[in-house]
């Protein structure tokens, strides 16, 4: 099994969720993160002093999937999350050795 971590723009979450649903990936966990990268932070103003906000709000989406789905999942996420503008985010793939469903104790592919 693989873990897909995608850092995306917050307003793209719903689109990505639907895109993944269309290929039957219906389990995922998301969190609010802040990202730092090529996308220039904007400068904000606070009572007369300008300052740069380096870290921009992003959503991190994590989904554990079966090995054979990696390509299709990456394709779907890329398609749905893309705006073409800098800061669209990244996808990272790592290996997962074991998965357990707490409710039933099922393991691995059955537990996804």
């Amino acid at each position, binding site marked *: 099994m693989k873990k897909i971590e995608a850092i995306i723009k917050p*307003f793209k979450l719903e689109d990505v969720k639907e895109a993944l649903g269309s290929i039957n990936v219906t389990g995922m966990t998301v969190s609010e993160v*802040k990202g730092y990268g090529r996308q220039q932070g*904007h400068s*904000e*103003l*606070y009572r007369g002093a300008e*300052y740069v*906000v380096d*870290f921009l709000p992003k959503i991190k989406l994590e989904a554990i999937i079966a090995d054979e789905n990696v390509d299709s999942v990456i394709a779907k996420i890329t398609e749905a999350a893309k705006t073409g503008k800098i800061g669209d985010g990244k996808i990272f793939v790592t290996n997962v050795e074991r998965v357990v469903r707490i409710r039933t104790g099922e393991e691995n592919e059955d537990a996804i």
Partner: protein
Amino acid sequence: MDTLTLPYVIDTFFLLFASVLIILMVPGFAMLEAGLVRTKNVVAVLTGNVMLYAITSFIFLLWGFNVMFGGNGFFLSGVVADGYSLYAYFFFQMAFVGKTVSIMSGGVSERIRIIPFMIFAALMSGFIYPMVGNAIWGGGFLKEVHDLAGSTVIYSVGGWALLAGILVLGARRGRYGKEGQVRAIPASNIPLVTLGGMLLWIGWFGFNGGSAFHIATKDAADLVGLIIVNTNTAGLAGAISAAFIVYFQYKKLDITMILNGALGGLVAITAGADVVGLWEPIVIGAIGGVLVVFAIPMFDKLQIDDPVGALSVHLVNGVWGTIAVALFADFSLLTQLKGIVLTGLFTFPLSYVLFMIIKKAVGLRSDEEHEYVGLDLEECGLEGYPEFVKSKV
């Protein structure tokens, strides 16, 4: 000692007291609306509320008051106060003017740019409102219409202008799906909404009570007492009826609906709190609450996107309250309807045209990206609840 001046003194004091209550509605609207929009648009709403109070009051001081009450120039010159200090009279009237725009600011929020909206606020307080006000309250050609504190003059004027504004602006992106389905966009801060709603409720005692203008005779004191009790009763009835209906429909006590119901009741009683007895406000307010609960989804069905429910509260109930005067007291229905219709016919098209002109001239709506990111950063340069990973320390 000259006791003859005491009624003058007491009425002046009373008007100042009422004005202070009304000005409490400035933070009232600001908190209500800031709580009802998404976090990313909170500062824009707050800034709009503060600035519109500043701008509308300022213009009203410069010439609006003068236009409305038949003065002869600028500032207060030529306006006559009837048995109380002219300053107190001005202050009380000035406390009103911002309300017509305050009620709009929630309805156009989350997409309107602040400066174009302030231009409209200036036009509203410098022209539209003083002209309607002059017709009904300034002794003009609608002076037969009974509208104690402004169900029509304030609330439906603001409501018509808001409707025009929403039509020109369009809905928030993503609010309505491709097949017309309505997507709820939840509020960001319910304690603020509740605080704002209660401050408005309390401010209304000054709004309606002060509109008696006099308290310094036994009859006047009784009348003020009656008005304030009736105002409160309609608020209670609106809250309770909205709660009943919303619970009946959804099995949930949605506090935003309940508060809007209360405000609907308060708007509805604003025209006639002085001419009805103690039980009529129960009916008027309860119907007000019901109207709100049904009007909110109706506007959504029409894809008229009003983030805070202001049309349902102020426009619908402004009309209802003005009609109710004829139903529950001895006033001509025809006259009341005439007031409603002519006000609408004057305000709505004029506002529509003004919004269109502003749109062409300087743009009205924030661009797509800023709408996604939120207006706060673009318009105000700050966020409502900033912090986290922001600065080194």
